[in-house]
């Protein structure tokens, strides 16, 4: 008799489905007739990457609150619908479909992790809903189609920036690379750094790997020490970098460690402490930068969340701001029109620097290199794209 059941279940399911399609039709005209403009956000609010997802979400929420406090866009308030994808593969496709087809959002913001952005991007593209990723740096994300944007720079740019910095400013010859193989971001950034570093005559002395979530890096660091490099490139997230720096110092490794924007977070120095002194990383903005956009953001974020913002928060904030700006400019909530407006954004003053959307829908903006000095981030130099 259990053969019979699936067919019954199918029948019932399809009946329900039929009903659902009926119910959902009215809202499928994006944002129309309402006094709000619905914007969807998908983020890893729980699960293994929740710390990044929550930061990014905080930034986004801050921007939306700010916009609404200033009277909203096109005379309407922005309603931010946030869905959690639990840092799980497969979930972002589901939630983005829900946001688009059940909630009828006009645009999508998200995700931090490139793999989850890549899952959602084809859906947004098919539905002609613009999607802005705050901080997915993998080049493939925006290659999905002309509705997919991002407000961060991409791995090849950042990789090259750090390679040049290591070669020219730090004058390094032999560098070890310690990659988080679980993270697409880390793997991508490592790849472009290695390319950049070797083409300028540097040598990769050792390559070691870890998995995000690891806490013990002694084995890798001991091997790195044995290879005797003059610097270590760690294209990872701050969640591990602090511990890596600590353990490196404990093993007697005194060479500089440097990495990318994944480092940027107040927790980095809290955990790594003195072990990080004299280390470098590239990122989007310097909190000391005097631009009003940056100052305004840092002040408001600290007031609201009682914590200093990290890069993910700044990018989340910018993704919402630039979307609102595009909607304002085009005067419409139509997906295609928003897309066109986004593609035309130039020198938009964001918390993560001035953003210009290039032909490939990536943010073209300068990278800032910071040094960790006396437990704070010190500005070193700006590298234009």
């Amino acid at each position, binding site marked *: 008799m259990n053969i019979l059941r699936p067919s019954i279940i199918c029948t019932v*399911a399809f009946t329900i489905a039929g009903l659902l399609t009926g119910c959902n039709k009215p809202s499928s005209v994006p944002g129309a007739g309402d006094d709000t403009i619905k914007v969807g956000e998908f983020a890893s609010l729980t699960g293994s990457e929740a710390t990044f997802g929550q930061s990014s979400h905080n930034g986004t929420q801050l921007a939306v609150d700010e916009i609404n406090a200033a009277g909203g866009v096109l005379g309407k308030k922005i309603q931010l619908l946030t869905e959690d994808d639990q840092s799980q593969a497969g979930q972002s496709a589901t939630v983005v479909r829900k946001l688009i087809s059940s909630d009828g959002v006009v645009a999508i913001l998200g995700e931090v992790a490139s793999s989850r952005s890549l899952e959602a991007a084809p859906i947004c593209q098919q539905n002609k809903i613009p999607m802005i990723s705050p901080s997915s740096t993998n080049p493939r994300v925006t290659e999905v189609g002309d509705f997919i944007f991002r407000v961060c720079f991409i791995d090849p740019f950042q990789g090259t920036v750090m390679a040049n910095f290591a070669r020219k400013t730090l004058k390094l010859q032999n560098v070890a690379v310690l990659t988080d193989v679980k993270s697409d971001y880390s*793997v991508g950034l490592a790849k472009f750094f290695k390319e950049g570093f070797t083409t300028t005559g540097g040598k990769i002395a050792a390559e070691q790997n870890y998995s995000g979530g690891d806490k013990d890096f002694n084995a890798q660091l001991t091997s790195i020490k044995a290879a005797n490099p003059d610097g270590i490139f760690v294209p990872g997230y701050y969640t591990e970098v602090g511990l890596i720096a600590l353990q490196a110092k404990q093993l007697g490794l005194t060479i500089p460690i440097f990495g990318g924007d994944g480092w940027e977070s107040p927790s980095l120095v809290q955990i790594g402490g003195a072990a990080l002194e004299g280390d470098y990383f590239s990122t989007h903005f310097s909190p000391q930068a005097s631009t009003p956009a940056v100052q305004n953001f840092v002040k408001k974020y600290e007031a609201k969340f009682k914590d200093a913002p990290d890069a993910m928060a700044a990018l989340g904030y910018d993704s919402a701001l630039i979307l609102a700006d595009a909607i304002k400019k085009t005067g419409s909530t139509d997906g295609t029109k928003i897309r066109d407006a986004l593609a035309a954004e130039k020198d938009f003053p964001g918390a993560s620097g001035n953003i210009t959307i290039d032909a490939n829908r990536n943010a073209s903006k300068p990278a800032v290199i910071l040094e960790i000095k006396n437990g704070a981030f010190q500005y070193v130099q700006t590298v234009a794209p």
Partner: protein
Amino acid sequence: MNFRHAKTFLLGAIALGFLASLFADRINPYWLFIFYDIGISIVMAVSLNLINGYTGQFSLGHAGFMAVGAYSSAVITNQFGDLSFLAANGIFAVALLAGGLAAALAGLLVGIPSLRLRGDYLAIVTLGFGEIIRVILQNMDKVGGARGLSVMHGWTNLFWTFGLAAVTVYVVASLVNSTYGRGFIAVRDDEVAAEAMGINTTKYKVTAFVVGAFFAGIAGGLYAHSKQFITPGGFGFMQSIAFVVMVILGGMGNTIGVILAAILLTLLPEGLRMLSGIEHLPGLTAERPLGWIGDTRMIIYSLLLIVLMLTRPQGLFSLKKSSVQK
């Protein structure tokens, strides 16, 4: 119900799936893809039930087989560009089959230690195999490594998901409900006695693993062509455990219960999501009175799981009669 008509039901279910797929574009895509998830969960849970429920071998690596199927089929279909309706479905069928076979091969590999190991030891080894598969994929640059693999074609549809779910149920139920298949349950009930009664326990255990893995591979293919993007991290041991939960909540060795549990557990998080999205409640004017559910959705989910097990430990849908039906 007389099992004699099994084949009729199978064909009926497939035909129905086909009919439904013709109307797919009238279904809200969000729900449509949830149906795909349900179909995939059914294939996974029912095939795992053959290993865990009927044969009594405790496998914690089912998502690993799914990964093998997902990657194999995706690598095949990614070789092709846009195809006509018929060609696309033809290629898809071949790719799914290939994914299933690749996973079955992996199942054979895992099945071999099952000959020597029992209970928790077997469980941890299957878990280990699942993790090893994940780590290998993570380091295979050809399929994108940790960066994941984009699957070009979204060929999964209602016909394939529910047709294959029906086939899985048919195969597992047919296997078990035959004189030959009573051997599976005999192995579960008492391995020593089964061996003494002339049942080649080795063959049965390996068969269960191979058949179970085959369908997990097919489910992987369906998954890959529904999500269109796969990463090794999506097939970790927490995923395997999610399927084990379905089997146990449905009642070990109870196919109907397991199907219902697969549906329930796929819908539950979405249901909580919907609740939190309700904007107005009668009598309340607050904008999202249930918004807190959104923040605590997974806490509620895990609490529900505990409460369900405490109140219905024999499985949610276990029937009074023996869990093994005639």
